């Protein structure tokens, strides 16, 4: 509550409202452009352009003597283009690969920028104060004029993204195909890079050279976790970027001595971490749950297989855990939980005898074991004879093989099983096999 009351107090101050609008606009536009850069695999390019902007800004100041954001934009654009040309030239005409070229160009341009900056500070330029704010950014220095420029530029960037949506999508997904259609891919790349430069430059005053790259790439990377559609990813990335801007600004305003730019980056990073862990399909948590479920299912099937195969080979159908583990080496803990869940389902009975756990199937369990074994073996022969039989037992899309046997494949697969001598040879009480399985049981 305290934070909220402080925030509302902060919002009643018209001057600081400018700062808030500025950082939100910044998050919005860098989120959208960042998505394209991210998908074009140019994530580091934002960092290079941000660092390369520094010498451009210093040069613009040295040449014009004014701190007009428009001149800064031009200066940064010129050095940004130079930097990307340098990267292209290095990768093309030397044996150096792109990652090294990026690192080289980034540090050289930044170094030159620092030299210029020092030069400016040691010379009497009069109004040079504030130029060093571009290193780490100072959102508090945003005034109405800056925000108007930022707003205008952000809107222009969004409009351009909308206009070039189809072209950028093609560029990011399949540039070779795009070129075959006659789209000038090199030109589109240049346009995208120019938009990236612009997004970076309007953010420099607020976030600074060093942190600007985070604002470009983090919202996009976070947004990717939540959607499988490009249009939604762009909107989401813009929203997450804007939200990070707002959160960072509000936190910095309500806490003493915490700088806004870094807090915006921290907010964006928190948003990213939440996405990384909790997103429903791609998130780490969802993946872990899926893996655990799969392992459990596999362990259950192994128990049923062991029981069934023992019975099939004329055994008593009663096994101890050690025999199962010998046949299918899985972690003991996992076997234990599989046994527990099979018991809960009423498929097996476990009793302790002579210090070992003996396992045997229940009536229901034997039917299930038979079904599982049949399904597995049918899938095996289907894989061997996929060409002749047709149909599809592969779980759609994933390429893995599991799931039910389609009724129309049942008979040919059964015949193949017989041919290979792999048909399940022991049948639990025939009357209790569900009729749905085709009734082909001989």
């Amino acid at each position, binding site marked *: 509550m305290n934070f909220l009351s402080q925030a509302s107090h902060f919002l009643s101050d018209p001057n600081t409202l400018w700062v808030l609008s500025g950082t939100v606009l910044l998050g919005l536009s860098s989120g959208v452009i960042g998505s394209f850069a991210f998908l074009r695999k140019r994530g580091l390019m934002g960092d290079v352009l941000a660092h390369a902007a520094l010498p451009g800004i210093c040069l613009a100041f040295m040449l014009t003597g004014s701190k007009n954001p428009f001149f800064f934009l031009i200066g940064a654009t010129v050095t940004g283009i130079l930097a990307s040309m340098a990267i292209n030239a290095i990768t093309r005409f030397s044996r150096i690969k792109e990652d090294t070229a990026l690192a080289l160009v980034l540090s050289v341009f930044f170094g030159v920028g620092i030299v210029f900056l020092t030069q400016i500070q040691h010379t009497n330029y009069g109004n040079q104060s504030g130029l060093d704010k571009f290193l780490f950014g100072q959102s508090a220095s945003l005034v109405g004029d800056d925000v108007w420029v930022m707003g205008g530029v952000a809107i222009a960037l969004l409009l351009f993204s909308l206009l070039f949506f189809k072209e950028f999508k093609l560029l990011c997904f399949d540039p070779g*195909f795009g070129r075959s259609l006659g789209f000038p891919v090199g030109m589109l790349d240049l346009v995208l890079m120019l938009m990236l430069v612009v997004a970076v430059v309007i953010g420099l005053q607020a976030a600074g050279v060093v942190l600007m790259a985070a604002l470009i790439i983090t919202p996009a990377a976070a947004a990717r976790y939540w959607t499988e559609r490009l249009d*939604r990813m762009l909107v989401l990335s813009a929203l997450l970027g804007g939200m990070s801007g707002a959160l960072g600004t509000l936190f910095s305003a309500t806490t003493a001595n915490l700088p806004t730019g870094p807090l915006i980056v921290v907010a964006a990073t928190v948003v990213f971490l939440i996405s990384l862990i909790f997103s429903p399909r791609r998130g780490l948590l969802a993946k872990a749950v899926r893996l655990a479920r799969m392992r459990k299912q596999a362990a259950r099937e192994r128990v049923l297989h062991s029981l069934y195969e023992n019975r099939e080979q004329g055994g008593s159908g009663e096994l101890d855990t050690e025999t199962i583990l010998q046949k299918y080496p899985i972690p003991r803990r996992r076997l234990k939980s599989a046994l527990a869940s099979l018991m809960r389902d009423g498929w097996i009975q476990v009793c302790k005898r002579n210090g070992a756990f003996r396992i045997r199937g229940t009536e229901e369990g034997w039917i299930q074991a038979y079904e599982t074994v049949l399904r597995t073996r049918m899938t095996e022969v289907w894989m061997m004879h996929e060409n002749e039989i047709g149909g*599809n037992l592969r779980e759609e899309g994933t390429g893995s093989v599991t799931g039910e046997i389609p009724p129309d494949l049942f008979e040919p697969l059964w015949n193949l099983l017989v041919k290979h001598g792999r048909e399940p040879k022991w049948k639990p009480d025939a009357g209790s096999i569900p009729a749905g399985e085709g009734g082909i049981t001989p």
Partner: protein
Amino acid sequence: MKRIHSPVSIRDLSVAYHRKPVLRDIQFDAPEGKLIGIVGPNGAGKSTLIKAMMNLLPLTSGDVKIYGKPYKEQRDLVGYVPQRESVDWDFPTSALDVVLMGRYGKLGWFRRPKAADREFAMDCLDKVGMADFAKRQISQLSGGQQQRVFLARSLAQDARIYFMDEPFVGVDAATEKAIIRLLNELKAQEKTVLVVHHDLQTVREYFDWLLMLNMRQIAFGPTSWVFTADHLQKTYGGRLTVLPELPDPVAVTR
């Protein structure tokens, strides 16, 4: 209507990368309405030739004409299926969306696909047996299904000539069948299809004509004429340890 120009006519084509020649002395006139296989060992320049025909790489010398005119003026007549591995399939888009990209060339700058384009793209997906997967995110598709999406995208280009780069690589049996069916459908519509292919066992079954390539053109002609032990030796040299069983040239009837 009688056409004077060959769908693809190549004169004295060479391509060099970093001053190293990759392809030289390519010269042929592709006949219309044929399935033309392009075979040769790895690094023979098969993909390079396809890309060179579409101006995707600079030519060192030579000339490519599509129906008698440069590629630049005839883009709408050419459909392209790049290698499946050439793109990152973990891209936030659906199968239908990828197929729609085949319409982009005809749409031109800034115009968005219309409902009619969507319908067309759906039909193309249907032709490769992928209509049920239209909304599926593309990384959720198997390799063969991804290949079929690429084929559907080239169909969406509604072209007269198709260039396909290794469409049979790493696909399942169902996809292989779907591709063959599609190729024969295209042939029935008098379209010309050039396919980079690697499996010598199926060459005679799949292709009417053959271009045999090993950095230079070894042979070009009807499969029954040019697919000979002599040409295979020249194309693959010692690298081909098992020659596919070849019929006596005299006995070949088509």
